[in-house]
């Protein structure tokens, strides 16, 4: 037993355990000041909450995800065999790693990267090929070169924690270059917040590239972070493999009920996404006027280079009842990631930024 434990401890020693975003102590019930985890401050539409409230005795029954799979597939524009439902998008990361990776298998990811991608890869014993971002954006040329002989490429687009995107044409060229024996996981968690012209034709790309797995979540724009509902879109042979290894009841009744309604609430999602984009633009305008370096974002967060001012910024934000994410939690020290929230809270964010940076002037975007 002890040798086993020692081996596992050695394998996971490299894992820097994920530290979730902190809540705000003593804050209002629905935590509008918590801007640390990229949650949707508007939450889901009212009919979604009503669906969860109406569950009643269903909670005593094992969940059946077939109906949702059919409905979701139709909305996405595929048949159900091109779709797998997961317990949050993070479960898909774990399934992919479990299915594909063995000790020593090369995995390509950006540097910095989405932490869960890194953690599941290390836990599988994979060899990480970290490709530094260029100006906060995935360096697709370098990633394509690094992908030779690799089993897997993790590609969050928009990137977390920078919020940048690769343009659709560059993405298409990248997909052509990556060997077909390398699986590419295209994480589109934040894509709803990207400008339309920067959103790739994902389903068409998945149909064209059998080694492409698109990863989506209902945690962000659909407002269901607390219910853990996500899905993947890929060639049926890939989906069948994922289905074979996933837990049979991996999406619970509440998540199924909520997701079934949430995916129909297009007008609500459009409106709340529009509000987030408005506030994102206001935040970026403020950062620019203060001369603070930041990454121009296509997500529901903005990451700025806070450097030595990081502690002062956290304190100034805390004084306003705001908690954000320190870059050191995200493998990105010297930066702060601010989730874009409601107008009232974002005014307080801008106030805190002015308090800290108003006397500084040091360049524009990183």
């Amino acid at each position, binding site marked *: 037993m002890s040798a086993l434990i020692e081996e596992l401890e050695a394998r996971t020693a490299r894992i820097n355990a994920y530290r979730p975003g902190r809540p705000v102590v003593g*804050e209002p019930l629905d935590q*509008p000041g918590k801007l640390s985890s990229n949650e949707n401050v508007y939450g889901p539409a*009212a009919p979604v909450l009503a669906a969860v409230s109406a569950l009643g005795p269903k909670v005593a029954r094992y969940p059946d995800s077939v109906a949702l799979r059919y409905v979701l597939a139709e909305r996405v524009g595929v048949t159900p065999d091109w779709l797998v439902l997961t317990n949050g998008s993070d479960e898909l990361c774990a399934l992919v790693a479990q299915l594909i990776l063995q000790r020593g298998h090369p995995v390509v990811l950006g540097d910095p990267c989405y932490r869960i991608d890194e953690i599941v890869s290390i836990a599988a014993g994979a060899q990480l090929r970290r490709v530094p971002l260029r100006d906060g954006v995935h360096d697709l040329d370098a990633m394509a070169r690094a992908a030779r002989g690799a089993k897997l490429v993790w590609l969050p687009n928009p990137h977390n924690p920078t919020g940048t995107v690769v343009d659709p044409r560059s993405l298409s060229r990248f997909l052509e270059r990556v060997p077909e024996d390398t699986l590419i996981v295209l994480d589109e968690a934040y894509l709803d917040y990207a400008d339309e012209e920067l959103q790739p034709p994902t389903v068409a790309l998945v149909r064209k590239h059998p080694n492409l797995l698109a990863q989506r979540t209902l945690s962000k724009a659909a407002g269901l972070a607390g219910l853990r509902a996500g899905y993947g879109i890929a060639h049926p042979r890939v989906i069948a493999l994922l289905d074979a290894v996933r837990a049979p009841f991996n999406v619970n009744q509440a998540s199924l009920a909520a997701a079934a309604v949430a995916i129909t609430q297009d*007008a609500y999602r459009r*409106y*709340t996404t529009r509000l987030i984009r408005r506030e994102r633009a206001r935040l970026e305008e403020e950062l620019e006027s203060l001369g603070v370096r930041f990454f121009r974002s296509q997500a529901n967060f903005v990451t700025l280079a806070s450097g030595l001012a990081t502690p002062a910024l956290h304190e100034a934000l805390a004084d306003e009842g705001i908690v954000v994410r320190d870059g050191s939690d995200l493998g990105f020290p010297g930066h702060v990631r601010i989730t874009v929230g409601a107008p*009232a809270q974002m005014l307080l964010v801008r106030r805190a930024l002015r308090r800290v940076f108003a006397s500084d002037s040091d360049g524009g975007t990183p």
Partner: protein
Amino acid sequence: MKTIAAPNRLTARGAVNGSAVELGQDLRFRFARRAFRAPIAGELRVRVEWAGICGSDLHVARTGRWVTDWPAVLGHEFFGHVDAVGENVDLAPGTPVVADSRIACGACAGCAASPAECVNLAFVGEACAGGFATHCLLPASSVVTVPLDLDGAIAALAEPLACALHALGHLGRVPERVAILGHGPLGALVHLALRDLDDSIEIAVAEPLELRAELALALGAELLPEDASDGVFDAVFDVAGYAGSLGRAVSLCAVGGDVVVVALASGQEKIGPSALVEREVIVRGSHAFRDELPTAVTLLASAPWRFRPLVTDAVELDQLPRFLETELTCSHGVKALVKP
């Protein structure tokens, strides 16, 4: 941890230095420094945290109407913390409160029965300095306490929500189909209040501004087409007050339906009596609110997330003059809040 702001440095006799946005008789807004005196017996002083901009504030800014206290400090929808109290006031400093915007004259026949029956009702911001300021002095009876865990930016919606609830109170029955003319802040609150009343109510909205129309759709309404048929809706709320809106409201109303007029249109309207007679339409005006303010606070506290999508803008007090100038030309959002 968020802390309640400490009182500003006191000047002589308990006054505090602060600031306000003043509207002059030239109908120009100015950011100004002001001293706010200590409250007298029965009064309290509120440290304003969030104040909502109402359509009536814009109407005052355009016309100077209703103001009796110049220069005016508008703002009658606001949340804050009690900053100081006069004698005989039970509320402790630090208590979170929202303002009751109404000021009864105390002298009319209506007031003899109840302040709520006052026929000369005036409002904070017009008859006395209001919430577009760091502080506001109010009678202690003119505030309602708010739960500690309610986001102040949501609490600031209490007064207009009370107006929306009061408007719904005029309905003779629970309607099946409702039209709302105008989906600004008050129209949107009427919308949400209707959903609370009965989630199966079919709601159609007429609203020309894009973001407001998008909100209506987001909350589950349909958009009312220009050529919508007459006599279809059990109830119509006129929250728009444009030329012809009242006539349109009446024409949209089904037999025995209710028209509730909330908007204060400035012009005159022609309505053919036959429309009222033949369909037995009841037209009721709805002015401010009666006893709905505590209920509004309770509703906001029970589900603040439902109301958060209404707030589309937040502006610093010293930026308010410029913001209002833009709003007076063309409003782009739904509800705007001011942060002193």
